[in-house]
């Protein structure tokens, strides 16, 4: 018992010290934590060594972009969309077609891909004005599937053979043609994406999304334009999917296949967001990292992967509806609560002598 209490106190101290140091960094400059994050992530390709692991790191970054975007519309705005992979495919194929068939460099095809995906996101978002829940889920699923079916039936896009020869991006003579080099393109974009998602979700816009999720009628009554915010949420998440798709298309070997945008990818993506925590600000990030790594470790058992993923989704929804993010939140909240109680007990024992000590931290825990 005493050991456990000591462990809990230690974990709380750890969490508190992390938060305090983050706050101190933010005092220096609001962007400081992000700079530190970039510096910490920068040497990763050297630390990993193995090229395959670097590829995996790139892939995780792309997945984080995707799942963070999905979390915005699904977790925060509460719109059940399951066609996100379709948007990802649109982004990837637009970038690929632009750079192969029209010869535009990556820096032009990327914004075009994002723009096209934004438009597609508007198309996906339009049904959300009239439909809710399962209806919306099926319509988005239908749209997402239509994209894949369209690609695999269209010769211009390579049909089922896939679309190959997408060039690596370049700046002047420098080409991002290895996974190590590509990491320095994907990682900053991922960090920027996560940064913007935090900014959006902690702003007025993010709070409006949550109001729409909790109760559209109440949100409308409080002056939130429900339609507009639903549309904005869909567009933001589509933009994320566009970035992810374009980055995926240009990553070596520069080959796209409609088989990479099937229901399996959809389930993987869904699992990331659900496992990480729907509507938790870290949800998509935690989920993308865990799921991609677990998927890779269990690749030898890929026959069972869908069964495993499906069951994990079902069990997560049944027993852990807030995902890992929710559990961490609850853990921290409980520890804080215990700490406050202990502090009060100690104060009571001391007869109120130590009044000023230990006051810190109780305010934000309340």
């Amino acid at each position: 018992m005493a050991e456990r209490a000591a462990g809990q106190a230690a974990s709380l101290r750890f969490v508190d010290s992390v938060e305090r140091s983050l706050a101190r960094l933010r005092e220096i400059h609001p962007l400081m934590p992000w700079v530190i994050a970039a510096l910490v992530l920068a040497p990763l390709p050297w630390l990993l060594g193995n090229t395959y692991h670097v590829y995996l790191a790139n892939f995780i970054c792309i997945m984080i972009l995707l799942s963070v975007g999905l979390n915005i519309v699904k977790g925060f705005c509460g719109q059940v969309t399951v066609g996100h992979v379709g948007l990802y495919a649109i982004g990837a194929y637009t970038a690929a077609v632009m750079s192969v068939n029209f010869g535009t460099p990556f820096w032009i095809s990327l914004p075009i891909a994002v723009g096209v995906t934004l438009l597609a996101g508007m198309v996906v978002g339009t049904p959300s004005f009239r439909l809710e829940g399962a209806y919306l889920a099926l319509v988005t699923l239908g749209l997402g599937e239509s994209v894949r079916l369209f690609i695999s039936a269209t010769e211009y896009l390579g049909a089922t053979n896939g679309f190959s020869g997408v060039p690596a991006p370049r700046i002047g003579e420098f080409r991002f043609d290895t996974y190590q080099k590509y990491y320095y393109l994907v990682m900053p974009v991922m960090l920027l994406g996560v940064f913007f998602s935090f900014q959006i979700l902690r702003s007025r816009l993010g709070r409006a999304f949550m109001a729409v999720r909790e109760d559209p009628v109440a949100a409308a009554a409080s002056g939130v334009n429900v339609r507009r915010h639903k549309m904005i949420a869909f567009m933001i998440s589509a933009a994320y999917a566009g970035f992810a798709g374009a980055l995926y298309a240009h990553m070596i070997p520069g080959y796209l296949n409609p088989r990479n945008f099937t229901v399996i990818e959809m389930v993987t993506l869904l699992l990331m967001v659900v496992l990480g925590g729907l509507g938790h600000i870290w949800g998509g990030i935690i989920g993308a990292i865990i799921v991609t790594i677990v998927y890779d470790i269990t690749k030898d058992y890929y026959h069972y992967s869908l069964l495993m993923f499906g069951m994990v989704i079902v069990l997560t929804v049944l027993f852990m509806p807030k995902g890992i993010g929710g559990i961490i939140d609850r853990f921290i909240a409980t520890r804080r609560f215990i700490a406050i109680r202990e502090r009060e007990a100690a104060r009571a024992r001391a007869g109120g002598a130590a009044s000023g000590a230990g006051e810190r931290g109780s305010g934000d825990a309340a």
Partner: protein
Amino acid sequence: MDLLLDFVIVGVSIGIVYGLVALGISLIFSGLDIVHFAHGELYMIGSFLGIAVISFTGVPYFWALIGAMIITGVLGVVVERVFYRRLTRGGGGYTVAGMGMIICGFGMSVALQNVAYLLWGAAPHPYPVSFGMPIFLGNIALPKSYLYILICALVLMTVLHTFLTRTKLGLAVRAVAYNKDTSYLMGVNVPVMISLIFGVACAMAAAAGVLIGPINYVQIEMGYLMLLKAFAAAVVGGFGSLPGALLGGILVGLFETLCAGYLIASYKDIYAFLLLIVVLMVRPTGLLGILVKVKA
């Protein structure tokens, strides 16, 4: 003209199969206010079970249909009891599952698909039955399986309709669909009725799977497209309306077959989605105009 007639016959037969699956989706929706996302997988598993029944016991096609329906129905009840019950019970009464239920059904769907893959593999399976020579209507050679689809589906619909409207059990099912709390107070065993609804809906899906088997190959990926098309059928006909599901199925089947016949054939599967999207945008209540319950 012959071509058109051929398309119409094929479209209607396929559409009736969509209608059968849509019937199950509609039934579950009216009973539990949820859309069962794994329903397409039960259709696929039902189809495979039909093959398994035929190849293990050597019984004729008709008995395989009944056998597959019973096994899939039991499977559906088990899935509902073990997994969905927690969700459908949460949030007061047996309704309100919202996003959780959708995601859960999605996960269940891929899990079931993987189970089917482990059992039967990824290769398409032909149905081990033969109905002999096709029937000739003028210049059109019509395989007999279309006829079987028509007859079996109509019989099944009639049985279901009679069950729901003429028997005491059917009345209880309808009462549960109408209001669970009141049904409880009137002495209806609501949990059992919900399991029954699930079982019947899954049996219908299995029947659709066995009926479509002789026309198409059976493969593990077929459930997923079927879910979307059956949902389209249910929506086109009006969600929660059983005759509407059949009508919607026929419309979707016709639309799809005609578009594939006269427009680009390789986009066949996209047309049903287009119809679904257009109907949802223009007239979400469906053709029969049943009031849409917005709960799930």
